[in-house]
């Protein structure tokens, strides 16, 4: 009976997280983008809807909306937006429809990292998207150092396991 209870609460926990799609507060193993809008806090202007365009070209001549596929998509609330996807293109344009009936388009901006954060400034006719500090925009040497440390840990773990298994097989 106790084990059934544990299983039940485990399921309940998993599905409470699954159903918390609207909160989207934490980061996860899928790449994400968070857009914080400046000037929406007073409540006069709110977000109605948004489209995130994906581009492979730096001039965004090949822009196409982010496809909605499972959890992939752009989710907007009154004052912020969040995108989640199975990988992002290198360049983007954000298009937001506001409660004043105006649709504003942003400048072209780059994917900054795995979980990118952006500040969006609302201008009379358009949007200005700026990247906030993120691991993904560290200099290349920083990325290489992190990759080397990661490879070192992985190598040490594999080596340790090989030594352990060899000793174990000798004992047997």
């Amino acid at each position, binding site marked *: 009976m106790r084990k059934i209870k544990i299983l039940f609460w485990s399921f309940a926990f998993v599905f409470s*997280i699954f159903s918390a799609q609207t909160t989207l507060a934490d980061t996860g*193993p899928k790449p994400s983008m968070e857009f914080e809008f400046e000037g929406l806090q007073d409540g006069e202007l709110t977000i109605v809807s948004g489209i995130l365009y994906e581009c492979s070209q730096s001039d965004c001549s090949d822009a196409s909306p982010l496809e909605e596929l499972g959890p992939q998509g752009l989710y907007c609330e009154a004052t912020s937006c969040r995108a989640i996807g199975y990988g992002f293109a290198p360049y983007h344009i954000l298009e937001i429809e506001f409660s004043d009936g105006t649709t504003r388009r942003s400048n072209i901006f780059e994917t900054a990292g795995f979980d990118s954060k952006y500040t969006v400034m609302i201008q009379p006719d358009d949007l200005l998207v700026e990247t906030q500090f993120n691991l*993904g925009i560290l200099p290349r040497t920083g990325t290489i150092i992190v990759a080397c440390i990661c490879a070192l840990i992985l190598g040490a773990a594999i080596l340790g396991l090989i030594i352990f298994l060899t000793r174990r097989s000798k004992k047997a």
Partner: protein
Amino acid sequence: MIRTLAVTIILEGMIGFAYARWREKPLIPLLVTSAVANLITQSLLWVALNVFFRHYLVTLWIAELTLWMMEAVLFFSLRWNRLGIRDAFFLSLAANLFSFGVGWWLPI
């Protein structure tokens, strides 16, 4: 990351629980091994995805294959699990496929 890790440990724990009941293996050691293995492998996955964020799917697939094998070796290496190499690989595959499949559709 904490949310992802918690979900992974619970999902893989469920598979560990079912496997332990089915094959009459020690439950607690299997669950502890699974949790510890996930702590290590999820951290590595997190670092890998952050470093190679421009190649998400390729990184994810390669990392998942590596993590499956790492977890299998860990299941096999720890004697108190009483698992043969085939059982360890099977359990690790089942647990990782389950958590990967569910996680694919979760907005986290």
